C-alpha cells in the first residue's frame, strides 16, 4: 500500500491526541453541517419558490407588440411640436397566431406551446357581481403548460359545450358549487350562461378569485374577437434559458416575448442575492474550518518536534514527514465532513419533519459527497504549512528540542 507508513504514523498521532482530535473534528463537523444544511435549505427554498411561481405561469408569454402613434414626419426645414397621448392598448389578436404557434412548436428548446385568448368580463349570479378574467384555452395544450387538472378540488376539468372551470375564491364569492350556473358578461350585450364543471385552487388568491377557464371559441365570442388568440404561452426545457429563448422568439416572430425572468425580475434579483450571501457564508465557514485545522496541526508539529527529529534520525525522509501531516489534514477534513454531512442531513430531516412544513427540502445525494471531497481537499491545503514546517525541521535541532 502506498504511503502506508505515513498513514500509520498519522493515525497513531491523531489517536494519541484524542482530546485535540475530537475538538477539531467537532469544529469541522459543525462547519460542514452548517454549509450542508444552509445549502440544502436555500436550494430547496429557491426551487420551491421558482416552482410555485412557474406553477401558475408560463415560462414565456408571447403577445402582440404595443400599438404606437404614427407621427407624420415634418416637412424639410420645418419644426414640429407634437403633443402625443399614448394610445390605449385595446385587446387585439396576434396576427396569424396559428402560424406563430406552428413555428414555436418547431423550436428545439420549447417543450409546450399554448395559444390563449384572455380578456376581462363580469361574472354574475343573482345580485352578486365579480370582475373576472376570461381565459379561453385549448385544454390539451394548456395543460402541458400549467397542469391545472392537478389543482381541481371539486368536479372535473372540462371546458367547452358551455362548461367552465372557476377558481375556489370566485366560487366562494358567488356561492357557486359544481353544477351551478353562472352568467358571464363580456360587455356590450355579449353574455352567456355557463355551467360550472369544476373548481380549482392554484394557491394564488388573485388567480383563484379571477380566472374563469373557457373553451377558446366561447371566449372569442364573449370578447368579440372571433378566431383570435391574444397571447401564446410557452414553456421551455431549461427554465433558466427562458430569457434567451424569449429573445429568439421575439426576433423570429416580431412579437413581444417576455420570459418569466423578466416579469419576475425582482424575484430573480432576490434569489441571486440569496445565493450570493449563502456562498459568502459557506466560504467564511470553510475558511475558519481551514484555519482551525492549520492551527491544530501547527501546534502538533511544535509538540512533536523531538519525535519528528527521532523519526528523521531513523531514516524517515522529508517527503514522508510531509506526508504524515498532510494525511492528518486529509483525515481531519474527511472524517469531520462525514460527521458534519450526517449532522446536516439530520438537520434537513428534522426541518422536513418538525419544521414549519412550508416546503420540503430535497437533499441532493451529491451534496454530502461534494462537501466531503471539498473538506478533504481543504484539510490537505490547510495542513500544507505545518507539514512543510515538519518536513523542514533540522533533525539535530529537533532531537535537542525540549
Amino acid at each position, binding site marked *: *500500500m502506498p504511503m*502506508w*507508513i505515513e498513514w*500509520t*504514523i498519522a493515525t*497513531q*498521532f491523531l*489517536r*494519541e491526541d484524542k482530546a485535540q482530535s475530537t475538538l477539531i473534528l467537532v469544529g469541522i463537523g459543525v462547519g460542514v453541517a452548517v454549509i450542508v444544511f444552509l445549502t440544502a435549505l436555500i436550494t430547496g427554498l429557491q426551487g420551491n419558490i421558482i416552482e410555485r411561481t412557474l406553477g401558475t405561469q408560463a415560462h414565456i408569454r408571447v403577445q402582440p407588440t404595443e400599438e404606437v402613434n404614427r407621427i407624420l414626419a415634418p416637412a424639410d426645414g420645418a419644426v414640429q411640436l407634437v403633443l402625443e397621448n399614448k394610445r390605449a392598448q385595446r385587446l387585439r389578436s396576434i396576427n396569424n397566431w396559428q402560424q406563430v404557434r406552428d413555428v414555436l412548436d418547431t423550436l428545439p428548446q420549447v417543450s409546450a406551446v399554448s395559444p390563449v385568448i384572455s380578456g376581462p368580463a363580469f361574472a354574475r349570479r343573482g345580485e352578486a357581481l365579480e370582475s373576472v378574467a376570461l381565459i379561453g384555452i385549448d385544454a390539451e395544450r394548456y395543460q402541458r403548460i400549467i397542469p391545472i387538472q392537478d389543482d381541481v378540488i371539486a368536479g372535473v376539468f372540462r371546458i367547452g359545450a358551455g362548461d367552465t372551470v372557476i377558481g375556489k375564491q370566485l366560487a366562494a364569492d358567488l356561492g357557486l358549487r359544481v353544477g351551478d350556473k353562472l352568467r358571464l358578461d363580456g360587455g356590450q350585450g355579449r353574455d352567456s350562461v355557463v355551467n360550472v364543471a369544476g373548481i380549482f385552487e392554484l394557491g394564488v388568491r388573485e388567480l383563484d378569485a379571477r380566472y374563469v377557464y373557457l373553451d377558446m371559441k366561447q371566449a372569442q365570442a364573449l370578447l368579440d374577437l372571433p378566431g383570435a388568440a391574444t397571447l401564446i404561452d410557452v414553456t421551455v426545457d431549461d427554465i433558466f434559458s427562458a430569457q434567451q429563448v424569449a429573445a429568439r422568439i421575439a426576433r423570429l416572430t416580431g412579437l413581444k416575448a417576455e420570459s418569466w425572468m423578466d416579469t419576475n425580475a425582482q424575484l430573480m434579483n432576490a434569489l441571486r442575492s440569496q445565493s450570493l450571501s449563502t456562498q459568502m457564508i459557506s466560504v467564511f465557514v470553510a475558511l475558519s474550518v481551514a484555519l482551525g485545522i492549520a492551527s491544530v496541526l501547527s501546534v502538533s508539529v511544535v509538540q512533536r518536534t*523531538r*519525535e519528528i527529529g*527521532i*523519526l*528523521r*534520525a*531513523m*531514516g*524517515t*525522509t*522529508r517527503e*514522508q514527514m510531509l506526508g504524515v501531516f498532510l494525511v492528518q489534514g486529509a483525515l481531519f477534513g474527511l472524517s469531520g465532513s462525514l460527521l458534519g454531512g450526517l449532522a446536516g442531513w439530520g438537520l434537513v430531516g428534522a426541518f422536513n419533519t418538525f419544521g414549519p412544513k412550508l416546503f420540503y427540502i430535497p437533499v441532493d445525494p451529491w451534496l454530502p459527497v461534494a462537501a466531503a471531497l471539498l473538506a478533504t481537499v481543504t484539510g490537505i491545503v490547510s495542513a500544507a504549512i505545518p507539514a512543510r514546517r515538519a518536513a523542514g525541521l533540522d*533533525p*539535530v535541532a529537533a*532531537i535537542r528540542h525540549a
Partner: protein
Amino acid sequence: MREHDAAQEVLRLAGLRKSYNVGKPTEVEVLHGLDLRLQRRDFVALVGASGSGKSTLLNLIGLLDQPTDGELFLLGEATRHMDDARRTALRGSAIGFVFQFHHLIQAFNALDNVLMPLMVATGKPSREQVERGRALLAQVGLAGLEQRKPDQLSGGQQQRVAVARALVTRPALLLADEPTGNLDSTSAAEVFALFRKFNREFGCAVLLVTHDGRLSAQCDRTVTLVDGRIDSDTGAAPTA
C-alpha cells in the same frame, strides 16, 4: 546484514572539519580536521569535556549534519556531498541511534517502536521482520511487554526498547549518546551489557559518547576529544 569488504572498515574520517555560522563574523570552527577509522567489532568510547565537540562529531557521523571540510566515509561511501534523500536512506540502513533520553515515539507500542526504522524504509513489516523485532525485544529482556506503550515502561525498559530499535536494521554502526546518563546504575549496567552483547553477536561497531569514566574503561578503545582535536586514541587494536 550488510557485508563488508576485507578491510572491514565501517567509518573513516579524513581531515573532517566543522564550522558554525560560516561566512558570518561569528564563524567558529568546532572540529579542526579529525582523522579516525572504525572497524567492524570496534567498541569505542568517545570522551571529552563538554564543549570539546563530541556532540557535533556524533551528529556528523550520524549523517544528521554535514561537515564543512574533509570527508566522511561510511561503509566506503563518501557522504559529504550526498543529497538529503540518499543521506537519509544511508542513515536509516547503516546507523542505529541510541539517545540519552530514550526518545521513543509515544504513540506506538514497544514492538512498533522497534520496527519503526524498518517500517519507515519498506512500509508494512513482513512476518519475518515482526519476528525479528520480537526476538530483539526478548533479547533485551522485554518479552511479553511488546504491546506496552512507552509511558507504561520504566526508564531502563524504555532505553532497552531504544537499543532494540537501533539494532533492528542490523546497522554497521551503533551510535550512542550518553545512553546510560539518565539511568540508575543497575539499568545502566544492563544497557551497557546489551551493547557488548550485540557488538559481539552482530559484529556492529559501537561508538559510545560518555562522561562516565567507569563506562569508558570497559570499552576496548577510548578516543579523547579536546577542543575539537583528537587528543588521544588509546587501546586501538593494531588489527581488527
